[in-house]
């Protein structure tokens, strides 16, 4: 019984971790950008979605759509106001560009958090479940919303798979992740490809933020830890590898759930960190890393 409970509970959480992490890893793989404002963007989506649903009677679905759009807008703002100027700057030597972007997005993430503190206070909020009620899966009482989260997450991941592997745009993304210079030599505009990645990223981060808000609730105070957990998963999976991040999301999700059920809920965050440390010793490139 408890095994089944762990299986069901862990699946929903891991799927959510997966969606939150694939955008992050795609961004690094294709654009070489580690976006440390990631958690902030997710929180924006959750808070705006909640605010629209509760204070402007957008309803749970309207709120979810507005939340995802807010994530997309936040992603564009991050790109155009923070990342793009650093990429274009001639004052920054190319070999230092990554560290500048890292610092830039870190500071931007802090600004987002302080801004949200001011607008929404740091009080956590939860969005209304998209489908209310509970269902019984082999006797385990599960909120229907948890099932929906798993389905939506896998639909999003499936859509991403189709986009990357079955469309011309996806081929450009793959090419950009392997050899951006070669792609420019073939006459493709890199900034165009980057914009597509930021769009996909914004939608995924927005979706993850909204689903998170319906599941656990969000608060501006979560921004840092959300970035950190996406970071952990992405490092474990192999920086830039989308399938690696998905596997890592399940490893981390289940390790946490098993710990919470069988050892103590308090120790929940510990196994992910242990696994990360061990992985860095024996396989520093991560599960499916290229290097």
């Amino acid at each position: 019984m408890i095994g089944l409970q762990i299986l069901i509970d862990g699946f929903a959480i891991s799927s959510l971790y997966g969606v939150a992490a694939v955008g992050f890893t795609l961004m690094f793989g294709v654009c070489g950008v580690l976006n440390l404002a990631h958690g902030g963007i997710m929180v924006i989506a959750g808070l705006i979605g909640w605010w629209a649903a509760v204070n402007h009677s957008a309803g749970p679905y309207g709120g979810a759509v507005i939340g995802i759009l807010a994530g997309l807008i936040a992603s564009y703002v991050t790109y155009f106001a923070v990342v793009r100027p650093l990429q274009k700057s001639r004052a920054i030597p190319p070999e230092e560009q990554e560290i500048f972007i890292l610092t830039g997005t870190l500071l931007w993430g802090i600004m987002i958090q302080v801004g949200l503190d001011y607008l929404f206070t740091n009080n956590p909020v939860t969005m209304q479940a998209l489908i209310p009620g509970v269902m019984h899966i082999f006797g385990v009482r599960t909120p229907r919303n948890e099932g929906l989260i798993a389905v939506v997450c896998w639909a999003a991941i499936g859509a991403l798979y189709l986009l990357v592997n079955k469309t011309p745009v996806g081929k450009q993304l793959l090419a950009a992740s392997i050899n951006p210079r070669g792609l420019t030599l073939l006459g493709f505009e890199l900034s165009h490809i980057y914009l597509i990645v930021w769009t996909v990223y914004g939608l995924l981060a927005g979706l993850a933020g909204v689903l998170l808000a319906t599941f656990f609730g969000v608060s501006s105070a979560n921004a840092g830890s959300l970035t950190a957990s996406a970071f952990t998963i992405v490092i474990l999976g192999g920086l830039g590898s989308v399938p690696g991040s998905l596997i890592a999301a399940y490893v981390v999700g289940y390790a946490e759930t098993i710990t919470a059920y069988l050892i103590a809920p308090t120790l929940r965050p510990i196994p992910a960190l242990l696994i990360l440390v061990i992985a860095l010793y024996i396989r520093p490139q991560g599960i499916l890393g290229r290097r």
Partner: protein
Amino acid sequence: MHHPFTHRLLLLASVAACLAWLGPQPALAQRDNGPIKIGVVSEFAAVVGEAIAKGAELAAANINAHGGINGRKLEIIAYDDHSSAAEAVRDFQRLAEQDHVSAIITTFISEVALAIEPWAARLHIPTLTPAAASNLISKQVHDRYSQYKYMFEGWFPSPILAQSVCDSSRDTLVKELHLSTAAIVSEDADWTKPLDATYEKCLPKAGLKVVDFVNFNPDTTDFTPIFNHIEGKNPNVMIMGIAHVGVQPTAQWYSQRVPIAMAGINAQASNNTFWKDTNGATEGVITQTGSAPGVALSPTTLAVQKAYVDKYHNFPAFTGFTAYDGTMAFAEAMKRANSTDPDKVVAEMEKTKFEGSVGHYEFYGRTDEFTHALKYGPGYATGIFVQWQNGKQVCVWPTDKCTNKLEFPSFVKLPQ
């Protein structure tokens, strides 16, 4: 020749001179006709912390409208500590040494209050926390009175909070609904340790057998395993001790339809935004708090509630009222002492006796267990218990002031 005695005397004299130079000089620092300043150190981004600054401001406006403190205006200087102990101590020092405040109202977090307490002692600043509940705060005043006497608690230490939970549970859950078993569910924090210890002692006396005890990390986001574990023990009610978390466990309790009533202290549920924050998941949740709209706990309650809502357009967390009362207590003490001298203010604070917005307002004395904390009991402040019903907090305890009946959502299973 050496004269060890003279040397030692010289050394002592110079140490004494240094100490005199470094020591607190608040009486000299403030001119006698300028405004009297009271400092506030709190976290403005938190609903509970924001209300502290606003409650103090409201009290100052009221005092100034009635002639100030013996003719001198009262001014509030508020700093944001982001609930960091290190920042709070810096703010406290700045208020004391640069702004020359005569008293400070600070924080709802016990860890922060405990970091500030020694500074109140060192700098001789009468200080009041309107919500921090660790019993160590009053214990230090009790054990080392001459040093720590500057610290006051304008609300209840956790053992008293726990006692009020037991008293209200006996009157409502046990007498009216015939519940007989409880699980204690609390976050791991300074304020809950004494709370849990008192729960374990007083719940059985109130008629609730404790069948489970869960203490969890305040960073917990997924409460499924915790509820799952508790359900296995089959209690009638979960007696909570949570403040750092609140929205998540409540929302998940509802979304998972956990069939156990939720009562005790769910501090975030005392905020009037909680219904929106949880999308109504809080329906049926009972919590201890200090105030609810329209519940008159003393002759002054309703007037203060109205003044607050008129000024800030929302109904505050209970700290809005405890900070208001604390500021009033300081102002009255300074008025009676006709001085801002810290020792005189402390002596007068100890004689405080007035109708505060949260009830009859007096502090425990030097020989009581909870020195300088707010007195609890019939005839004094008691706090109240509210239950969320259809989007509103309705008062359910003390039963002499609140006559509402308890109602629970249908998924909560009560003994027949």
